[in-house]
């Protein structure tokens, strides 16, 4: 990979890409492969955006700073085309046998393992009807999946997407299409209540809605518990071998091989345009870079229509819509270096799971969400406890472990504490107090966990935003995925096809369709749109 210097001679590329997150790199790779010259400019000293791995606590403990789950990347159309090449550049996954589980206050648990008989045995033990319900859904998943992934895997809207819908209607019929549309509008609760009986089973699946901003009652959220559960059951979950950044390192390596250039510590000041056509960028250093065919902004609308377009796109009304693109609730990341794996009171088997959710009931989840939306620190936070070392021992020194704890649904500006203990104020001032609440909560489900902590690193929503300017208020999903900002409304209705209101200017990234995740969806779709299939 060429590490061009910020001060080197005036550069010209076919495509200039702003932001070295994985979608930007995916677009760069596809374009480079199609013979375009590409230059990627990243303000930070490290590529990867929200996919980074660092020794955050103690030497030898490798923590995925934000994203940990690479299942979407492993199953992505992008990887289908470039998997072999990326393999040559060291891409390696560590598969999880036991994917995700939820713990309950009565010292019980339920979880999904890749081995179907394991999952079914647990279901049968809880509720035999739900065991039947689960198998029925899993069978149906086989029929539905091609259509759903077809929709998720195409530019929205597009002839191709329309073809998917059309053929779905022809193959599956009107009733199915009608139900599918209703399903896409449904909240997790309505869908789960229609399909399952047991509250623990429902809560375990509903937790996936909380990975985005879909509390159990939010319309349009049913899709995520459904897809994640079925996909985890059918394909399992994977994380990166040695760290999530294995995918970034491999992408950088392959991009270099293709002649693409990545410039780190190269902060882009603004996007250059003439005659309302984007034709390059100006770096903070003053250097200008020319783009012959395209400027691709792999950033959130706030960044593109804020700093990068100081004079706007020339269409103020449209710019206003991009500026009012709504972030989702914030996240806190809590990284722990541990003497021993967490010993869950509910059962030792839980230590093998990639994710353990602390989100035991609908009520627990809706309360945390509604408190966060009202600007309060949730009195009982929703946790995703990731256990990478259960799957990939190389993440920590021999015999030691790490925990990746994601605290979902936190306010950007803290008006108060729903529990009434922590004074409202700057995240910088309160983050450790809140992290203590999180650790006490974990302790209540995994006694002794506290004592086995060797080191911790806390990233408040503010810290995440300063790590990555695209995570507004610590929103690790680059914008709410509610119905008004998803599908053909992502990020802004009428601009969901990556083309921005300025000639030769494009946007990709989690803020664009098909949304957040490590699936490289938008970067690859945009790459194909520009460079051809």
């Amino acid at each position, binding site marked *: 990979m060429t590490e061009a210097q910020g001060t080197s001679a005036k550069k010209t590329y076919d495509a200039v890409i702003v932001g070295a997150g994985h979608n930007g790199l995916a677009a760069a790779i596809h374009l480079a492969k199609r013979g375009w010259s590409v230059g990627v400019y990243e303000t930070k000293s490290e590529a990867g955006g929200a996919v980074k791995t660092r020794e955050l606590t103690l030497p030898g403990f490798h923590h995925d700073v934000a994203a940990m789950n690479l299942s979407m990347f492993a199953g992505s159309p992008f990887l289908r085309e470039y998997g072999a090449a990326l393999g040559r550049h060291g891409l390696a996954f560590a598969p999880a046998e036991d994917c995700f589980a939820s713990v309950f206050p009565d010292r019980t648990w339920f979880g999904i393992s890749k081995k179907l008989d394991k999952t079914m045995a647990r279901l049968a033990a809880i509720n035999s009807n739900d065991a039947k319900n689960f198998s029925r859904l899993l069978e149906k998943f086989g029929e539905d999946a091609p259509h759903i992934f077809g929709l998720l895997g195409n530019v929205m809207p597009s002839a191709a997407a329309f073809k998917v819908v059309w053929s779905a209607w022809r193959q599956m019929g009107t009733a199915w299409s009608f139900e599918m549309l209703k399903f896409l509008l449904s909240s997790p609760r309505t869908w789960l209540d229609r399909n399952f009986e047991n509250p623990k089973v429902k809560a375990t699946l509903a937790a996936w809605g909380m990975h985005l901003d879909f509390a159990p009652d939010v319309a349009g959220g049913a899709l995520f518990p459904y897809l994640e559960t079925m996909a985890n059951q059918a394909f399992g979950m994977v994380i990166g071998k040695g760290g999530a950044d294995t995918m970034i390192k491999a992408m950088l390596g392959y991009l270099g091989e293709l002649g693409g250039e990545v410039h780190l510590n190269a902060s882009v000041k603004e996007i250059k345009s003439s005659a309302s056509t984007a034709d390059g960028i100006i770096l903070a250093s003053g250097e200008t870079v020319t783009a012959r065919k395209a400027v691709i902004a792999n950033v959130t609308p706030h960044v593109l229509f804020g700093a990068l377009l100081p004079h706007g796109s020339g269409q103020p009304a449209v710019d206003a819509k991009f500026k009012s693109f709504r972030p989702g609730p914030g996240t806190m990341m809590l990284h722990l270096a541990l003497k021993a794996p967490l010993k869950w009171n509910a059962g030792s088997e839980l230590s093998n799971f990639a994710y353990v959710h602390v989100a035991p009931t609908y*009520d627990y989840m*809706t309360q945390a969400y*509604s408190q966060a939306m*009202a600007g309060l620190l949730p009195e009982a936070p929703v946790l995703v406890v990731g256990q990478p070392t259960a799957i990939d021992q190389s993440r920590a020194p021999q015999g030691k472990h790490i925990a990746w704890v994601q605290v979902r649904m936190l306010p950007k500006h803290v008006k108060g504490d729903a529990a009434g203990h922590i004074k409202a104020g700057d995240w910088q001032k309160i983050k450790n107090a809140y992290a203590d609440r999180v650790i006490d909560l974990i302790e209540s489900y995994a006694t002794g966990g506290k004592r086995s902590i060797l080191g911790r690193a806390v990233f408040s929503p503010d810290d995440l935003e300063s790590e990555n300017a695209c995570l507004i208020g610590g929103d690790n999903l680059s914008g709410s995925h509610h119905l008004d900002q998803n599908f053909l409304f992502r990020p802004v209705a009428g601009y969901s096809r990556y083309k921005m209101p300025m000639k030769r200017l494009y946007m990709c990234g989690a803020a664009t369709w098909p949304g957040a995740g490590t699936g490289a969806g938008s970067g690859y779709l945009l790459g194909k749109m520009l460079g051809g299939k």
Partner: protein
Amino acid sequence: MADYVIVGSGINALVAASLLALKGRKVLVLERNGSTGGCMRTEEITLPGFKHDVMATTFVLFLLSPAYAALAPELEKRGLQFAHPEIPTGVLRADGSSLVLTRDHAANVAAFEKLASGDGKQFDSDISRLGANAPFLFALLGGRLWSWSMAKTVAKEAWRRGPRGLSSFFGEALGSARSWLEPHYKSDLFHALMAPWVLHTGLGPESAYSGQMAKVIAFALEAAGAPIVKGGAVNAVKAFEQLIRDHGGEIRTNADVAEVIVDSAGGASGVILASGEKVAAGQGVICSMAPGQLYGRLLKNHGPADAMRQEAKGFVHGKGNMQVHYALKSPPKWKTAELSKVALLHLSSGLDGVSKAVNEAERGLLPAEPTICVGQPTSFDPSRAPEGKAILWLQLPEAPRILKGDAAGEINTPKDQRWNKAVREAYADRVETMLSKHITGFKASVLKRCCYSPADLEAMNVNLVGGDPYGGACTIDQFFLWRPMRGGANHETPVKRLYHIGASTHPGPGLGGGSGFLLAKALA
């Protein structure tokens, strides 16, 4: 023999019966209760001479409805008169700060601009944009969805706005009240004025498309105010009944329909009453009720309806509602005098407060600080109470259907999780304490209080499942094309000549009489 037998006598049934009767059809309305009108009932429930609208009271949606446009002269001839308040709505916060929405758009814009610079302008542009969209919007909210005219309407809009414009119309329409209010309006007080209104559409401030519904309501209140029926909602019912009878129709109360008769050809040919009496219908049977009643009871023995019966089991009902009625010695002396002129005043701590109370109710808790909707009928219809006296109409739209506890940790809820008199009155006391902070000498002025818990409301009207006054949750997956459920297109059912209307069907709840109007128009 009647051409159409209409089961139920709520607003939609009465609208359908009236329109069919006017078209020369012979209609027979069968009501299981002792009186007609569904949620429109006026009774002296506290003391003699105090006329309370027990449930529905505001007729703004009716005034704006195509049903009213078609029936106004006939109903007015039969004594229907509206009383109009000076100020349709307002909000009052615990700290005493308040804000009202008048019917004078310019005055509203000025007031909101004064509150926070930019808010007035934003309101002006939101309302005028909604005005421009109104024909399309009201076609979607009130039109027959599966029809050529709807297809043409949408196509026309697609052409007029372009695909980009159309998609941005729908995109914006899907936003929540929070996503409308927080980014676009600086003033918390303005948020507080609008947020409680989404409760009256069966939604919460975080619900999809609740932002659009809040705008629709602001637009409607400015356009038509918050009228009530002079002398009580019952006078609207009387006018409908007279209209129906004058056109050869018949109305029977205490006539509980137990079953729909399906003939060998799979068509509805009449109904059987609980008494065993058979009533024939020449052209069709129209049922205005909740899906559970229609498919779980009236069609329970009909095989071909099995699929719909299953669907009906999955039909979700919304939050409960509670009503509190007061007979007062004298009109309330609000500490802010202007508030005595407000027809529907919300006591609310604002957007976050409504969101919190909704969430508590959804978790089965009695909200610690519920939103209180205070109606003041006597302030603009003195005939509702004896000379010098007054009544108050209180609605608590955030009442849990099943009781798991009290968010304030004060009221003990019963083990069976059902509403009982003790809980109802204790909760009403909480509300009364909140209210009396703002009214001088309120408690002393109370002659009598009369409360209806969600359970009481369901006991009064079997279609208000769990005390849900909106005939089922109005979440988007159960609205528009999906109301009440698959196969409910254009109010048809799996049984030929059997039609389903009411709040549980498109276009949903409210006194607009939309489903009754759409069906009658299609039939005659």
